[in-house]
């Protein structure tokens, strides 16, 4: 298990199935809910940060998502699906944030230049490649990054991405193709 600061006293709930935890949380068990927060919160934070392009708003988005989840747990028919249900909530919240942000500032973050470190002479180690990928992902145009993140972190189908983002499926296909090529091209440069 990954080490965590302030680890709770071991409880049988820590290893309970998602279904058990979701059922208990729906019944009002805050301890079961806390186990779900610990189990999927980190993934949800990574996911939100990727969609948003930075971690400035991650705390807020993830917190709002869990509060929504708590309120709506009664509507979750199958507790085994709680992970993808949570991912959907936080994905939606993150996308809403982006939309709201766009109303306030007319930003155009498309095609930001890739950071310097991508010059072909560097980065052989996996760790650096990983960091480099993080930079390239962050520098992707917003729509591409959103599509890519929904696809890769939340396992959405093309159709689901289209629904979620209100875009034609053909556009989603195109955005994913562009994102894929950009990532592949950048990776070629790291050799």
């Amino acid at each position, binding site marked *: 298990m990954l080490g965590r*600061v302030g680890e709770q006293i071991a409880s049988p709930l820590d290893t309970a199935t998602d279904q058990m935890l979701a059922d208990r949380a729906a*019944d009002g068990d805050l301890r079961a809910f806390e186990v779900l927060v610990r189990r999927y919160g980190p993934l949800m*934070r990574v996911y939100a940060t990727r969609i948003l392009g930075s971690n400035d708003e991650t705390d807020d988005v993830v*917190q709002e998502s*869990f509060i929504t989840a708590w309120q709506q747990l009664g509507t979750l028919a199958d507790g085994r699906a709680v992970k993808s249900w949570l991912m959907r909530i936080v994905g939606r919240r993150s996308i809403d944030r982006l939309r709201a942000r766009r109303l306030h500032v007319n930003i155009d973050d498309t095609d930001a230049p890739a950071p310097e470190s991508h010059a072909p002479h560097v980065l052989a180690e*996996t760790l650096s490649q990983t960091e480099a990928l993080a930079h390239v992902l962050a520098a992707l145009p917003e729509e591409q990054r959103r599509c890519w993140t929904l696809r890769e972190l939340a396992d959405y189908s093309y159709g689901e991405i289209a629904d979620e983002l209100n875009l034609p499926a053909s556009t989603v296909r195109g955005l994913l193709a562009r994102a894929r090529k950009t990532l592949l091209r950048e*990776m070629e440069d790291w050799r």
Partner: protein
Amino acid sequence: MTELTPADQRFVAFDLDDTEREQAGLNGHTLEQLSDYLDRGRVPAEKSIDDSPDCEIALRGLERLRRVQASLLELDLKRESLRDDNWIASILDNISLEARAGREIPLAHPSPTARLVITEGAVRGILREAGDRLENILVGRCVLVGDVSVPANPITIVVDATIFSGENIPMLAERLRQAMHSALGRYTELVVAAIDITVSDLYVAPKASVPDEQNR
């Protein structure tokens, strides 16, 4: 990675806009098709892909991208898991227990003007608590079936439970039933006609609860 194209020569198929060049460079295929092919585990085998050295280069690139993505996710998750617990505390602090309180169940009171209730959520809490005091059993969903708003109206309680594998199921279920009965008698005035316990799962010996974040 010397198996790829020479560093000074770009791999044409990774060109951003030109689908025709992409297909020309990939034996008539697109990167999307190759990516789907990888998703399918390269089955059923497609000769026009497998036999094309250009496709092979692209497939290797895609595989490498996936590997690096997976390790990036792992790294990010590790980083997030090592954070202090403030964010968890802040979530739990902002949660309202009322949201899951359910129906109100009247309790008798000597004064005719006083109205005393216990919430359904609190009763479920009492039931869970009774179960959690027992070993080798975990109580899941608890449902109060019947009109709980009418005092002395008999109700049924339906409980899901998980029992550790290897335990005696009927014996533990009976113990749970008794514990729940006596806890309800202590804290509520509910008339319980029956407590139906369904053992829906056997709980396998504890192992670390690492989220199954990656199975690709």
